[in-house]
C-alpha cells in the first residue's frame, strides 16, 4: 500500500475528487495548506505599506492506495489538477507499512 500526497491548487479540488472517484478511489483526506515554491506570491497592503506574501493557499490531498493502483491514481491527479501554469503542485508517493480500519479492525488491502 502506498501513501500518495498531492499538493494542488484549491480550485482544482473538485475536479481532482471527481477524477479519483471515476477510477474507483473511495477515500481520501484533504488539508488546507500554504505552499511556497516557484509560483511567486503577491503583495498585500496595510495602511499604505506593502509587504510580500510568499505562501499561497493550496490543498493537500492524501490517500492510501493499493500498490497496483498507484500509477493510475497519480495519473488521474496529474490530469485533473493540471492548468499548465506554474504552481500546479506536486505529487509524492511514500511507502505504507500497515493500515487499519478503525471501525472494523480490518487490516491490509481491505482497509481501502
Amino acid at each position, binding site marked *: 500500500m502506498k501513501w500518495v500526497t498531492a499538493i494542488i491548487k484549491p480550485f482544482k479540488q473538485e475536479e481532482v475528487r471527481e477524477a479519483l472517484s471515476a477510477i474507483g478511489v473511495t477515500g481520501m483526506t484533504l488539508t488546507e495548506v500554504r505552499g511556497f515554491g516557484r509560483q511567486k506570491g503577491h503583495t*498585500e497592503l496595510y*495602511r*499604505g505599506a*506593502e*509587504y510580500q506574501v510568499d505562501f499561497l493557499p493550496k490543498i493537500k490531498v492524501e490517500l492510501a492506495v493499493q500498490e497496483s493502483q498507484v500509477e493510475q491514481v497519480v495519473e488521474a491527479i496529474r490530469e485533473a489538477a493540471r492548468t499548465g501554469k506554474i504552481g500546479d503542485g506536486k505529487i509524492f508517493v511514500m511507502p505504507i507499512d500497515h493500515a487499519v480500519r478503525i471501525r472494523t479492525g480490518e487490516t491490509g488491502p481491505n482497509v481501502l
Partner: protein
Amino acid sequence: MKKISTMTGRVAMLGLLLAPVTVLAEEVAPPPVLNSGDTAWMLTSAVLVLFMTLPGLALFYGGMVRAKNTLSVFMQCFAITAVVTVLWSLYGYSLAFTDGGGANALIGGLGKAFLAGIKVDSLNGTIPETVYLTFQLTFAVITPALIVGAFAERMKFSALLLFMGAWVTLVYFPICHWVWGGGWMMSMGVLDYAGGTVVHVNAGIAGLVTALVIGKRKGFPHTAMPPHSLPLTVTGAGMLWVGWFGFNAGSASAANGAAGMAMVVTQLATAMAALGWMFMEWREHGKPSALGLTTGAVAGLVAITPASGFVGPMGALALGGIAGVVCFLGATTLKRKMGYDDSLDAFGVHGVGGIVGALLTGVFASPDLGGVGFSKGLDMAGQLMVQAESILGTGVYCAVVSFILLKIIDAMVGLRVDEESESTGLDIALHGERGYNY
C-alpha cells in the same frame, strides 16, 4: 457640543455676531425649560457616541490586530469605558464642567463630585443635566479608548488600567475644562465644536508618546502583522461613521438647524476624505484597499469634528479631501520615516487628522468660504493663531503629563508584557482566553 457651541449654533441660525448675543442671552433669557425634542436627540446622541466605542472602536481596532491579541483590544475598550464612567461620576464631570473658582482657567471645582445635587429635574440649557453629563461622559470614554491603537498588542492590562485612570484624571478632565468648561482656551476663543483638540489631538499625542515609551512590537517593522479580520475592522468603521453623527450633530445640544448642518458637513467631509485616501493609495500602490478607504473615512470624521459647527457644505468637502490626503501621508510616510510603532495609527489618524481639522476650522469657518465666521474680534490669521495655540497647548500638556505617568507606572508595575506573553498573544497570556475556537 457644550455651552459655547450651542450658542454658536444659535448664533449661526440667527445670523448675528457671537458675543453680543451671548451676553444678551445670559441677561434676558427666561428660566430655561426642558425641550423634549432636544432631549430626545441628546439621549440618542449619547447612545450613538457610546456605540462608537462599544462596539464600534473595539471592532475597528480589534479586527486590525493579530488574532492572538484581538480580545485584549476588545477588553481594553470595555474596561476603559467602565473605569472612566465610574471616575466621571465620582469627580470627572465636576472637574470638567463646574466652576473652579480662582483656578477656573485651569480646572473646575468639586461642587458636583459624586454627582451631588443633580436631580431628575436639573437642566442644562433645554435638556436634563443627566443627559448632558452622560453625553459628555461618552466623550471622556472614547478619548482614552482611541489611545489603545497606539500601544496595542503589548501593554499589560494592569498598567493600562492605572494609566487610563490617571490619564483621564490629569489630562482629559483638565483639557476638557479648558475648552468646554470655561477654561483658558474657551476664553481665548478657540473653535472646537465637537472635540478636535480635546478628543483627537489629545488622544493622538498621548498615543504617540505611549508608542515611543513602550517601544516597538517584537518584529516590527520587519515582520508583516496583517489585520486578522478586516470584516470586523470595516464593520467597526461603519459604526464609527454612523455613531459620529451623535458626536458632531449631538454637539449642537439640540435638535435644530445647527445639528442638521453639522450632520451634512460631517457626511460630506467623511466621504471626501475616504475618496482622498483611496485615490492616494491607488496612485502610490496601484490598488485601493478596504482598510485604506475606511481609514480615510475615519480621518475625515476626525478632521471635521472641530469644524462641524462652523463650516459650510463646500468647505466640508474641501476640508475632508485635504484630511484624507494628509492623514494618508501621516499614517504611511511619516510613520515609516520616524520609525515609531503606532500599531493602529492612533497618532497617524487622530493626531494628524485632529491637527489638520483644528487648523482648517480656522480657514473654512470664514464666511467667504461658506462658514459661520470666526470668534469675536478675530480674523482668519487671528483665528488660526488661536487654533494653533490650542493645538500646541493641548499637545505639550498632554505629552508631558502622559510621559510622566507612563514612566511612573512603568516603575510601579511595568508597562509591557514579557516577550513570551507577547509572542503567545495577550489574549491567552493576560486574559486566559482565545478569540476563536473554530
